[in-house]
């Protein structure tokens, strides 16, 4: 491996850090996210290896830097060139996970072969580790009204709960039949499915700190929380296509006089039913949501379609919290 121009340290606090996710993985981890005991983000980026060890550059990154990287706003090169601490760690780790050496180096002192390309932008999905926390910490800022404080946890739990059924596939109970002809039905539907999520995985508000920067912390299943983040990011990236698709679907339902129809009672022939399934499937796919589990549990294709449309409206509300600067949906919990 290349010689390093830096200062070796012993008793590095890195050894206490816990892996949260592999951000880039191909036949082994390439870029990983760890957290230390202070819950700070440490980005591990593979740079070299020999027969004994894998060599990683480790840099402490803020939540915003991490968000910008995973959301393709800044390349890996920027995190390596401008570390939060003004220096980088280079860690040689053996196959048993032991830190054989840790060296502090300046970004300018790295061998050129260790420096990522200027356009080293992210294009992967984080893969969570078993040790990923069973909680989601959503940073909050700005002026929160009492209404915000009461509505946000419900909104998040609604999105999480439907995502839960698409990801986990269990339990097998059907969704309770709701007419889904107005907003009240949707609210009742989402309230009900929240209760159908098994207690150990149910989204629960664990903490709320309003100090700036504050945070809302939910207890939940990390895989589903990851899915929610993916869906949310996707809906932001493709919001124009999704809005167009939503509007077209809405118009079709209006034209067919199904918008205000009771989804549990309306009679739809086979052809119409297939058409509604296709509409729902296409829209769910646009959102990155698996449609089959929803269709299987819903009381017919009209209810399933309306569930997905209502889910989208909830994503938009979540987006409003972010665009008004009240929350920042994290990349990794």
């Amino acid at each position, binding site marked *: 491996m290349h010689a390093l121009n830096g200062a070796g340290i012993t008793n590095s606090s890195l050894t206490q850090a816990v892996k949260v996710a592999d951000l*880039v993985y*191909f*036949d*082994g*981890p*390439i*870029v990983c996210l760890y957290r230390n005991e202070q819950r700070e983000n440490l980005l591990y*980026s*593979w*740079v*070299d*290896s020999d027969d004994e060890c*894998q060599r990683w550059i480790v840099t402490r990154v803020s939540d915003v830097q991490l968000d910008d990287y995973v959301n393709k706003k800044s*390349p*890996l090169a920027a995190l390596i060139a401008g570390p939060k601490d003004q220096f980088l760690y280079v860690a040689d780790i053996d*196959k048993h*996970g032991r830190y054989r050496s840790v060296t502090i180096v300046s970004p300018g002192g790295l061998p*050129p*072969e*260790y*420096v*990522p*390309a200027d*356009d*080293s932008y992210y*294009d992967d999905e984080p*893969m*969570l*580790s*078993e*040790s990923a926390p069973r909680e989601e910490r959503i940073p909050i800022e700005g002026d929160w009204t009492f209404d915000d404080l009461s509505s946000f946890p419900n909104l998040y739990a609604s999105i999480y709960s439907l995502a839960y059924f698409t990801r986990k596939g269990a339990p097998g109970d059907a969704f309770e039949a709701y007419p889904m002809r107005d907003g009240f039905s949707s609210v009742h539907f989402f309230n009900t499915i929240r209760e159908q999520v098994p207690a150990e995985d149910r989204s629960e508000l664990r903490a709320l700190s309003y100090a700036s920067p504050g945070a809302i912390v939910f207890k939940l299943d990390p895989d589903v929380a990851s899915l929610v983040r993916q869906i949310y990011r996707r809906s932001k990236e493709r919001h124009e296509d999704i809005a167009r698709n939503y509007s077209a679907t809405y118009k079709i339902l209006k034209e067919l006089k199904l918008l205000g129809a009771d989804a549990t009672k309306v009679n739809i022939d086979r052809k119409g039913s297939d058409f509604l399934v296709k509409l729902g499937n296409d829209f769910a796919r646009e959102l990155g949501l698996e449609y089959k589990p929803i269709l299987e549990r819903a009381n017919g294709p009209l209810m399933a379609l309306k569930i997905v449309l209502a889910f989208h409206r909830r994503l938009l509300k979540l987006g409003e919290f972010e665009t008004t600067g009240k929350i920042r949906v994290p990349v990794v919990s």
Partner: protein
Amino acid sequence: MGFKYEKQHAGISNCPPHAYRAVERVSFRFVANDPPLPDDFLPVALRPDHEPLDRDVRRCQSLGLSLFASEKAGREKFNYLRKKAPLIHKKVGTMIATGTITPKDGLTSDIERHGHFTLHEFATASLHASFKIIGTL
């Protein structure tokens, strides 16, 4: 037909995943040797530098082989990785090889994002013998 790494599959749930199928498909793989050697087709879980994984889905994946459905997809992935880690060839090899996998070779995933898929080999598979180098990375 038995899998090549059946012993390692034991204790991992849904491995190989139920959705995997036997297919015939022209495939591409990063390799380090010309002609390819058995080591070029060793799943990541069996490599000496392998980091232990903690989740069944990942443990299972690491017993499969990473392949691409086109040369273009393989090269794009390599370039993507090289932008993050310029010495990535030390991990994955410096050449790209191609061959056709058949239903007798094992079970594969669907072609995933960016043209990647995974093959869990049957015990009789011997891909290194049928894959040929087509270029450097």
